[in-house]
């Protein structure tokens, strides 16, 4: 019976509904501070229009140009905001409490935009595949809808079709990623999650070669992603039930008990810790899925392997940055009050992630899967920094994300270069003796591998040192030891690849190294540059990160 529901509450429903329209006051949106996101999304929409109206011949150029300009502009906007002090002093919550504009948000947005930019270069690369019927082709299917090997596809290829939709899709994804770490209420969080996930599902399915694997990757990613987001949503629902609101601030204040005037009628839901705990666990799980932490990691290897390599690189970098950003905000803003509940769990997750990723990677035979597992291991290392629960921890994670994302994109960019008749030669055995055949490429890849392994003088070491330092200072000493051990294990398989490239005799039918256009070259060059600079002189970026280390409440 409805008697259980208090009368005023019921009445309130009526009143709210019954209020006259005149009383609605227009929401106040700080467009300037949201400009990065708006620019990217806007460009994406434009891109869709371009697909509709621009002739097929020139679409590629228009789209690529549009995307690059949009990302560059957005990045400029981020820099402008940061320079305007929105990262530090003027940090506040915009868009009616939906989106936070603060240090971490801007820092991560900047990172995502740069990573996106260099990835877009890979998307636009058209020199690697041999020309089909006299027109250059990129790494995406001529016509995604066509059956692989079918006549329609042949026709499409003959006609020189290309899936230029990838650019707007990428832009949408980036748009979502930009919102994700700056979302300041759970609804925005969820929307952003979907906005950057859905395009990625599609992008995964668009490989030109090995389309079966590509589609399989897409299906797996999609189903598991949807599954995960369902959990997330349920978690959000429970948190809403717990706090009566989805805004971070409110939930936080309920968590640390600063809101006490609870309607007695709602006593059984409002402030019910069971709801809080379960809700947090579910939301957290959704984010851990995105960062690829054990045991929610199993999509990673398959998707990384099946997706078109440029997409893999983009996704590996972008998703991790965005997801860790969101995770940080959630843990530092919403539930710092209950760290004693989630910290042990996160410890466990971090440990199994580090060890699991490193150990399983040892026996991998496909370079893309290898990198996938290494990304899992790295997720573990970053988690160690997240757990620190200190400003130092935040900044170390931010720094690590920058270092990691550029190394990853660079590594995958190199993977796109090593090709044989069947497209990219991703099987490790094919990489034997690469160092003999083309020392430069092998050397560059070796640099990336060493960075992954965290050898000093590379960005990888600086990052690893930063997070471990933060973890140790935050009282997670044992975690550091585990991290060190798993780094040792991880080192083994990075070294294995180097051995393969340099010390084993080249195979007769080995792959050739394609000479890329300046686009991919730029991507790789940026990767190397960031790796070396962050390795030799990380101070400037550490400063940046530590200035950006404070979340706005």
């Amino acid at each position: 019976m409805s008697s259980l529901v208090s009368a005023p509450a019921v009445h309130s429903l009526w009143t709210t509904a019954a209020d006259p329209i005149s009383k609605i006051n227009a929401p106040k949106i700080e467009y300037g501070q949201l400009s990065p996101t708006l620019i990217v999304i806007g460009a994406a929409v434009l891109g869709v229009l371009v697909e509709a109206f621009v002739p097929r011949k020139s679409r590629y150029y228009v789209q690529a140009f549009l995307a690059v300009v949009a990302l560059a502009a957005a990045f400029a906007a981020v820099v402008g905001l940061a320079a305007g002090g929105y990262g530090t002093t003027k940090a506040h919550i915009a868009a009616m409490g939906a989106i936070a504009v603060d240090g971490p948000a801007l820092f991560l947005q900047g990172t995502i935009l740069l990573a996106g930019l260099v990835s877009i270069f890979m998307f636009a690369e058209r020199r690697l595949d041999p020309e089909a019927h006299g027109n250059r082709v990129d790494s995406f299917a001529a016509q995604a809808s066509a059956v692989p090997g079918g006549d329609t596809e042949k026709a499409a290829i003959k006609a020189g079709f290309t899936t230029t939709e990838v650019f707007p899709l990428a832009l949408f994804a980036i748009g979502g990623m930009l919102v994700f770490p700056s979302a300041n209420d759970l609804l925005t969080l969820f929307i952003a999650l979907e906005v950057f996930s859905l395009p990625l599902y599609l992008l995964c399915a668009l490989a030109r070669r090995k389309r079966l694997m590509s589609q399989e990757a897409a299906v797996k990613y999609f189903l598991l992603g949807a599954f995960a987001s369902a959990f997330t949503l349920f978690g959000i629902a429970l948190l809403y039930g717990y706090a009566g609101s989805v805004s971070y601030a409110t939930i936080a204040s309920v968590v640390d008990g600063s809101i006490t005037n609870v309607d007695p009628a709602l006593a059984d839901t409002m402030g019910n810790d069971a709801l809080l705990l379960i809700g947090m666990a579910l939301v957290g799980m959704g984010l851990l899925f995105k960062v690829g932490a054990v045991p929610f990691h199993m999509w990673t290897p398959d998707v990384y392997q099946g997706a078109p390599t440029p997409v893999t690189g983009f996704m590996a970098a972008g998703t991790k940055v965005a997801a860790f950003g969101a995770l940080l905000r959630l843990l530092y803003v919403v539930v710092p009050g209950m760290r004693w509940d989630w910290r042990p769990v996160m410890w466990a997750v971090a440990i199994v992630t580090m060890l699991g990723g490193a150990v399983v990677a040892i026996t991998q035979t496909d370079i893309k899967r290898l990198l996938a597992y290494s990304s899992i291991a790295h997720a573990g290392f970053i988690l160690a920094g997240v757990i620190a629960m200190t400003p130092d921890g935040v900044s170390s994670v931010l720094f690590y994300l920058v270092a990691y994302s550029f190394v990853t994109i660079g590594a995958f960019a190199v993977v796109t270069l090593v090709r044989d008749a069947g497209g990219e030669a991703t099987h490790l055995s094919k990489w034997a003796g690469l160092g003999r055949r083309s020392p430069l490429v092998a050397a560059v890849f070796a640099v990336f591998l060493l960075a992954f392994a965290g050898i000093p003088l590379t960005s990888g070491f600086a990052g690893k040192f930063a997070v471990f330092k933060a973890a140790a200072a935050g009282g997670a000493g044992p975690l550091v030891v585990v991290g060190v051990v798993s780094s040792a294990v991880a080192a083994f398989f990075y070294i294995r690849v180097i051995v393969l490239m340099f010390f084993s005799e080249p195979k007769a039918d080995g792959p050739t190294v394609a000479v890329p256009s300046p686009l991919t070259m730029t991507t790789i060059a940026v990767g190397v540059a960031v790796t070396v600079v962050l390795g030799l002189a990380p101070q400037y970026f550490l400063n940046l990160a530590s200035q950006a280390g404070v979340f706005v409440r």
Partner: protein
Amino acid sequence: MNPVNYLYLAALLFTIGAIGVLIRRNAIIVFMCIELMLNACNLTFVAFSRMHGNLDGQIIAFFTMVVAAAEVVVGLAIIVSLFRTRHSASVDDASLMKL
């Protein structure tokens, strides 16, 4: 009647959906199970919204529907293209990549 019961129902639906995802082979059905889970979430939102006496929950439910719709678009596109190439929508057939 006590809105808490709606929560129990929602939880039940959610679990059914999840179980369905785990046991069903056909990609479409798996996908439908996921939709079921989303709807369970909606129900939860609405129930809580009712209990808290504010509208956030109901509005969120609308958002969820939109997202679900978008998901359907993307999902079906992918599943269909997979079906076209394999002539089967069984998620177990799609296991080229493993180990």
